[in-house]
């Protein structure tokens, strides 16, 4: 694909002295109208962009993809065999393969503690939250009769010997 008509031009700048009310950031977006060949501002001031960007306050108000590892853990039913559990895991593989934000996933099962675990490497936290919303939790509840517990970790450096690559967020 190549560019067709211009839609918008946006600017973000940090100056803590000029924009003290918005953590130093100023945001501006101008929507382009092809028919009249003019730009119209989106909102009236820098606070409009700040309102949206507060959801990523932890990333200094900039939408930045930081890879994260998500661990989803729950208790398996006592009467479910290992084979049954693995078959249920296996059935979900194609759906996870279709998620472009999932880098890899490991399906884990511990026979002694009867714990099932999913370890995910995501391109960003938003994708993880989206994939594991109420619909996912309902599915785990109906298939395994358990409520999963979620843990999140930043994954700034990941090495993969099979793919022969190191993904370093600071590189």
């Amino acid at each position, binding site marked *: *694909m190549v*560019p067709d*008509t211009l*839609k*918008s031009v*946006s*600017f973000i700048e940090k*100056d803590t002295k000029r924009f003290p009310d918005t953590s130093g950031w100023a945001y501006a977006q101008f929507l382009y109208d092809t028919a009249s060949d003019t730009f119209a501002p989106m909102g009236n001031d820098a606070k409009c962009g700040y309102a949206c960007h507060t959801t990523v306050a932890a990333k200094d108000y*900039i939408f930045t993809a930081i890879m994260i590892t998500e661990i989803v853990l729950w208790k398996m039913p006592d009467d479910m065999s290992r084979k049954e559990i693995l078959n249920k895991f296996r059935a979900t593989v194609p759906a996870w393969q279709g998620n472009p934000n999932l880098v890899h996933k490991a399906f884990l099962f511990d026979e002694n503690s009867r714990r099932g675990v999913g370890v995910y490497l995501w391109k960003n936290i938003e994708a993880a939250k989206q994939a594991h919303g109420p619909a996912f939790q309902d599915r785990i509840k109906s298939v395994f009769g358990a409520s999963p517990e979620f843990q999140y970790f930043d994954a*700034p450096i990941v090495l993969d010997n099979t793919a022969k690559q190191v993904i370093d967020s600071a590189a």
Partner: protein
Amino acid sequence: MKVIAANPAMMDAYRKGIPGNGKHFPDGSKIVKIEWTAKKNTESPYL
């Protein structure tokens, strides 16, 4: 279709691991985003 460009202050911050390392971008950090509608290039098989 979007192009997102950042100035050297912003890029240097990213290379140092900001914001993943919990630190903040420095004053003078700038980003520009340009957005177009997309169309297929009928000439090139690549695009």
